[in-house]
């Protein structure tokens, strides 16, 4: 069981590193796209486009900081609330596997939501931006629910 856990967590960790790298690359591309829009709008004299682009640029910076500084802290805080081993024997191993997987999947889901938010902020898609933030909140509450469900499952299946 521990081998399966470490294999799955290694896979999720590699996915995290890849997603974080892609996030960084796309954030920079989004930034230069917005600057290009600012320059063309200022030449054309379109004030609204300039302000839209400036606010989009700010939102990209804020989302980048949230993704790289906020999400790991949230995941660490929630993962510490997940009970790792709610019993003994196979239940304990299953609890460890479940808590590790829940933490990894929720972290990846939140980073993916931040990635989608950043892309939506770039193209000005307000609805998909809101949906991505809702997805981030869903992952958050899913981890809170899991922190209550794992001890209940251990109690139901029998503890030592």
């Amino acid at each position, binding site marked *: 069981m521990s081998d399966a856990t470490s294999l799955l967590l290694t896979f999720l960790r590699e996915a995290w590193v890849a997603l974080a*790298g892609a996030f960084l690359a796309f954030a920079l591309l989004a930034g*230069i796209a917005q600057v290009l829009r600012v*320059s063309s709008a200022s030449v054309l004299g379109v004030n609204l486009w300039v302000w839209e682009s400036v606010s989009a640029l700010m939102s990209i910076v804020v989302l980048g900081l949230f993704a790289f500084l906020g999400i790991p802290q949230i995941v660490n805080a929630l993962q510490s609330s997940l009970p790792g081993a709610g019993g003994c024997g196979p239940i304990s191993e299953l609890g460890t596997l479940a808590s590790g997987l829940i933490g990894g999947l929720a972290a990846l889901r939140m980073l993916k939501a931040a990635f989608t938010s950043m892309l939506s902020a770039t193209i000005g898609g307000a609805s998909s931006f809101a949906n991505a933030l809702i997805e981030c909140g869903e992952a958050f509450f899913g981890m809170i629910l899991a922190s209550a469900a794992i001890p209940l499952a251990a109690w139901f299946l029998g503890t030592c």
Partner: protein
Amino acid sequence: MFDPIMEQILAIARDAWAFMAGLLIVVALLGGLYFILQGTAGMAFGGSRMTSMAIIGVVGLVIIVLFAFLFLPQLGEMLKNFQPKPPF
């Protein structure tokens, strides 16, 4: 496992960055030419407001281009330093 995919994505992103940086230079040069034309026309016709707006436009354009080429790489370096390890 994801390294080959990441290399492909980063290669595309690098190409896109070079393309957009080139496009920004072209747009800035065209914009600068337009503002210079506006300024000289304003000077020829005695339109002081037109000339001053053109000068402000050129200065703004230079600031935007400098912002793009100096601030964005620094922002990327900062975010790269903040790039978190997997928190699980």
